[in-house]
């Protein structure tokens, strides 16, 4: 069977002058209604974050704040050291990107391109660990890091990253490297290139998209991460944005306008990253679904 690409049939269809396609009109109507429903919670939160304390409690809600209380943002962000939380989050993200891309890509390279005994067995173990829920390792890891004296430091969150903690990334790198041509690699080997040189000079420069996908994943997971930072980081000066927001939520429970301003602030870096790097976000998700 020869698959016809979607583009071909589209051109054929639009070449003929056709009357209004009511199915498409209906699809647009449903999609617009759906988009509004998906966007509304966010609009509502942003609007609340720009209201004065008095304006917040009105029913039916006013969507356009009057006056616009821009001061909510500085007020909320200085009520707690959010700059510190932000830097901590960035620091963890950078550390985890370094650790995970390095260790997972090296393992992926060995699984994809090198011939060695035990390769298939170990790769099977990698696949098995994909199925293990994080809860099972939660307590022994906590005990291990307690005994090592690592509680209230970034080490429990950073160190496992340097040991290819994420089996899915190993899998992702391996699958990508598998698709890379063998001739280039063989040529480099004949020219006397070492395996490490091969990795640095041939594989890495030709695999930038997969590194970008993994880096984006790490940033997103890191912004999202809550349970692990909460059990390991006890000192407020070491808090991440997620932990800071949770604390803010407890202490400013009733000051909804400030609370919404803080939660919008936490979300904005990810939204910006999303708009600029959408391609990599989507590639990662699609890869998970279709080949995972």
């Amino acid at each position, binding site marked *: 069977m020869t698959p016809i690409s979607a583009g071909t049939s589209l051109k054929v269809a639009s070449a003929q002058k056709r009357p209004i396609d009511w199915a498409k009109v209906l699809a647009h109507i449903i999609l617009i209604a759906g988009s509004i429903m998906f966007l509304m919670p966010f609009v509502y939160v942003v609007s609340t974050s720009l209201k004065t304390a008095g304006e917040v409690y009105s029913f039916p809600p006013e969507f356009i704040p009057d006056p616009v209380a821009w001061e909510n943002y500085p007020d909320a962000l200085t009520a707690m050291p959010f700059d510190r939380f932000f830097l901590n989050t960035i620091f963890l993200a950078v550390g985890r990107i370094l650790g995970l891309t390095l260790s997972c890509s090296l393992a992926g390279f060995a699984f994809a391109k090198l*011939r060695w005994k035990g390769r298939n067995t170990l790769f099977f173990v*990698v696949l098995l660990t994909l199925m293990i829920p994080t809860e099972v390792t939660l307590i022994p*890891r906590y005990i291990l890091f307690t005994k090592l004296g690592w509680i209230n430091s970034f080490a429990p969150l950073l160190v496992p990253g340097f040991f290819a903690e994420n089996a899915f990334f190993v899998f992702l790198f391996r699958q990508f490297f598998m698709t890379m041509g063998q001739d280039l690699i063989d040529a480099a080997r004949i020219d006397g290139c070492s395996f490490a040189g091969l990795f640095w000079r041939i594989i890495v420069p030709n695999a930038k998209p997969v590194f970008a996908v993994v880096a984006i994943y790490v940033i997103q997971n890191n912004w999202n991460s809550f349970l692990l930072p909460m059990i390991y980081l006890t000192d407020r000066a070491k808090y991440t944005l997620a932990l800071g927001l949770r604390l803010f939520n407890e202490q400013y429970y009733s000051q909804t306008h400030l609370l919404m301003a803080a939660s919008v602030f936490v979300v904005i870096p990810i939204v910006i990253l999303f708009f600029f790097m959408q391609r990599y976000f989507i590639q990662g998700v699609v890869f998970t679904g279709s080949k995972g």
Partner: protein
Amino acid sequence: MLIHNIFKPKRLSFWESLNAWVFVAPWILGFIFFTGGPILASLVISFTEWDIVNPPVWTGLGNYKLMLSDPLFFQSLKVTTIYALVAVPLQIVVGLFIAILLNTKIRLIGVYRTLFYLPAVLPIVSVAVMWRWILSRDWGLINWFLSVFGVYGPGWLSEPEWALPALILMSLWGVGSGMLIYLAGLQGIPSDLYEAAKVDGAGAWASFVYVTLPMISPVILFQLVVGLIAAFQVFAQPFIMTQGGPQNSTLFYLLHLFRNAFEFFRMGYASALSWVLFMYIAVLTLLIFRFSAAWVFYEGEIKDE
């Protein structure tokens, strides 16, 4: 993967093997210390009573027996199972529905895709804080929406019968990643299948049932398993929005486990809880795969019927 081994162009080189082992060494060490080791350790710890400060006391199956008399264990299992049974199928239906609409070759597809996907990338703690306000009884967006239709909305997070449905509703805001996966799957269906169905006189519904669904069924199976595992890891939403209440109606399994481990420092009991969860998920996953043969269709597979 296996083909390499069959052909074996030359004998395995010692130097190449050595390099390979060095490259996978970080993963091996990580596996031993952070995954494999801890899994075994948690099994051993589950047979003890241990608060970390004092030495552990061997209690055999004590923790597992204790579980049978712990009403909160059963409550958390019930809450999480209901959530999984309702939220996961709903997420699949909604995600697939949006994906099908987006697959109709219409304009602005990129804009729609961005809008539907965006909520799925937002950090969960922010989403939880935001939705506590959105679900507020007197000032929330949802109850305002209902009031437009003359419905007086409940106190979503303060009434035991509404708190879990509220969290399920909120989870639908994040269907964007599932939607993307279905969209990719739908775009991979060869269009001549639809043309053949049309020739055979199939309408839109028939071609959905006999072409789209079978072709997309492996993706649905994958999303079902992933969704199930994710449902058993729900934590931040109840922790921030309801603290498991009211009346334990949102006491998710992981929240119960967390409290035992990090509030009551019952590491043995919490480890036993984690093993029961592990087994429960494994059995459910096996059951899903066992019964998937009946409804999942793989291309190239011939079925005798």
